[in-house]
């Protein structure tokens, strides 16, 4: 599970959360015009999708608010609330994040004087522009390191001091929340005000919390809004890794690496995947639930591939037989179950009416052929 939360930063502009167009109009009046209207959806690239806009009048606020809250645009992207923010007069946009350097075994600050762009894109197009500062996870962020980043970003004087405060706060969040990523992008530098002062304003933020830390972070139940579909949400609640696609073949495999490779092989063979699903690991007895999550997609074929050690083949086969009996899937099932107890597994699968295979690539080819034939054996 990969929870991304939009942060509210102390450095952020004044803002109001609104649920309908009239609230948007009222907020715009309160915060002053022009102001920014931002859809609250968990996806990147909101600007490009037309989900963020600067509105300049009350009428415009009402019109755009209606489009997003109740209108077609909002409905298409699942917008339920929008944030109205005071517009800031922007001089520059910066990028800033804290993540992990696995090789050096440190935390890593990434920053760039060209903000607003995705860091992935930046790493491809202009890697030399990325400022990197390693931080020892035990000793923590030192003020001099924050100053070094500020200087590299061209921030001086009071802006440098503000940046040190901001980055120190991000560091505390990174450690306290067991984050994988803390990101502020864009980080705005405002134009000088009447007193000649500039300020840093967090334009948007992202916090990715390490799922593995749930036991000490009081890991909340995942919320529906973080998922693309009901079935993905259901799978997450059960701890079953699941991704939904719009193809024909439901994967029901064990082992993260093997499932990924089966996904590749289906694509190589010209097939298409309805869903990625792992029922290995601690979930390997959950075959009934796993198959139910596949059937939601009404696949043409279910493709089962395992080669397990701890996830025993015979136990998996028992589960699959049980699932077939309980769910009576109409589509064909291709099964290739190997590993501990595989002799017994073969007997079980045969008894359940399947023709067990022993070779992954053969199983994939068969599944693709079946899917192309419309899911009839």
């Amino acid at each position, binding site marked *: 599970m*990969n929870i991304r939360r939009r942060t509210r930063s102390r450095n952020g502009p004044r803002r109001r959360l609104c649920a309908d167009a009239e609230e948007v109009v009222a907020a715009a009046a309160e915060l002053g015009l022009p102001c920014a209207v931002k859809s609250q959806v968990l996806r990147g690239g909101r600007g490009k999708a037309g989900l963020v806009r600067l509105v300049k009048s009350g009428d415009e606020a009402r019109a755009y608010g209606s489009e997003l809250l109740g209108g077609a645009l909002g409905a298409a992207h699942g917008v339920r609330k929008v944030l109205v923010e005071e517009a800031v007069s922007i001089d520059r946009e910066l990028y800033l994040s804290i*993540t992990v350097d696995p090789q050096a075994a440190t935390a890593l600050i990434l920053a760039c004087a060209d903000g607003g762009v995705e860091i992935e894109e930046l790493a491809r197009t202009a890697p030399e522009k990325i400022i990197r500062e390693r931080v020892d996870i035990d000793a923590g962020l030192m003020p001099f390191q924050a100053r070094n980043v500020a200087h590299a970003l061209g921030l001086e004087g009071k802006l440098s001091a503000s940046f040190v405060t901001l980055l120190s706060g991000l560091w505390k969040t990174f450690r306290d929340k067991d984050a994988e990523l803390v990101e502020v992008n864009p980080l705005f530098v405002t134009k000088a005000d009447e007193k000649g002062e500039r300020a840093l304003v967090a334009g948007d933020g992202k916090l990715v919390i390490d799922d593995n830390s749930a036991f000490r972070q009081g890991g909340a139940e995942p919320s529906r809004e973080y998922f693309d579909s009901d079935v993905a949400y259901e799978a997450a609640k059960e701890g079953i890794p699941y991704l939904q696609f719009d193809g024909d073949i439901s994967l029901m495999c064990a082992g993260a690496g*093997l499932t990924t490779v089966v996904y590749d092989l289906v*694509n190589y063979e010209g097939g298409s995947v309805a869903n990625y699903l792992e029922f290995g*690991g601690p979930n390997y007895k959950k075959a009934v639930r796993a198959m139910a999550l596949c059937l939601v997609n009404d696949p043409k074929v279910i493709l089962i591939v395992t080669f397990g050690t701890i996830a025993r083949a015979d136990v998996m086969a028992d589960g699959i037989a049980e699932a077939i009996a309980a769910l009576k899937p109409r589509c064909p099932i291709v099964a290739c179950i190997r590993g501990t107890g595989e002799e017994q597994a073969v007997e079980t699968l045969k008894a359940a009416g399947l023709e067990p295979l022993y070779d992954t690539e053969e199983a994939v080819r068969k599944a693709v052929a079946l899917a192309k034939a419309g899911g009839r054996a």
Partner: protein
Amino acid sequence: MSIFIDRSDRVLVQGITGGEGSFWTKHMMDLGTRVVAGVTPGKEGQVVEGAPVYHSIRRAVTENPANAAMLFVPPRFTKDAVFEALDSGIGKIVTIADGIPLQDAIQIRKAALSQGARVVGGNTSGVISPGLAMMGMFPYWIDRVYKPGRVGVMTRSGSLTNEVTAMIVRAGFGVSSLIGVGGDPVPGTRFAEMLPDYQADPDTDAVVVIGELGGTMEEEVAEAMLSGSFTKPVVAFLGGRTAPAGKRMGHAGAIVSGGKGSVKDKIEAFEKAGALVADRPRMVGELLRTAFGRTLNR
């Protein structure tokens, strides 16, 4: 010779009294591993598969010197268990734990690096030198998949490794030493850090790298080849070539982040370094034949 573990290593098992710990301790012993003692706080005085159990490593090593530790310890206690092993000067540590908090993993790797110790894992099946010794969770049906031979294997996966090694064996080869570095974003040991051992091992003629999208471990192997520090043939098999961008598919470590870690980049790096890259598991065996020119001892 073998990589990481052989019959001379004296292994402690942390978490030996648990179901998993005792089950795999028996397997390890049956496969030749010298387990000298077990550790579970509060269980001193018990005996598991003939191994005496102690409250702590410090008490265990007083009576049973050890140089390796195998952890069957839940993820949330893994950092403590690794640090306990390091504190007693144990230099070879394997942890199978799946779900170690990311920031704990950083601290584990940092501590191991600073002490010159090697931590393998978490989220791995462990390490095995077929016919000699094993630390981890490799079962008895080893012949078809982990037949002894002269091909080294390094991998981020579990089930996929069974798939690929079965193909190595089907192609007529066998495995010298296999290191499962694990599927986590911050593994205790990285592929490239094992290369000097494989380079020096007279029983390894080539190395198969089973990688996947995410991270830069595969690129680091390619760098070692380019720099000339690793000169044996390498066959690479990479999962996630068709994986959708921005989704975490598979292991926690299997995600493109910060613009790094696409399979495309990894293939380019490997090919530039002269490694053979397999598209499918079966091709690994075929490429090993190519690499050896069918001439070397299998």
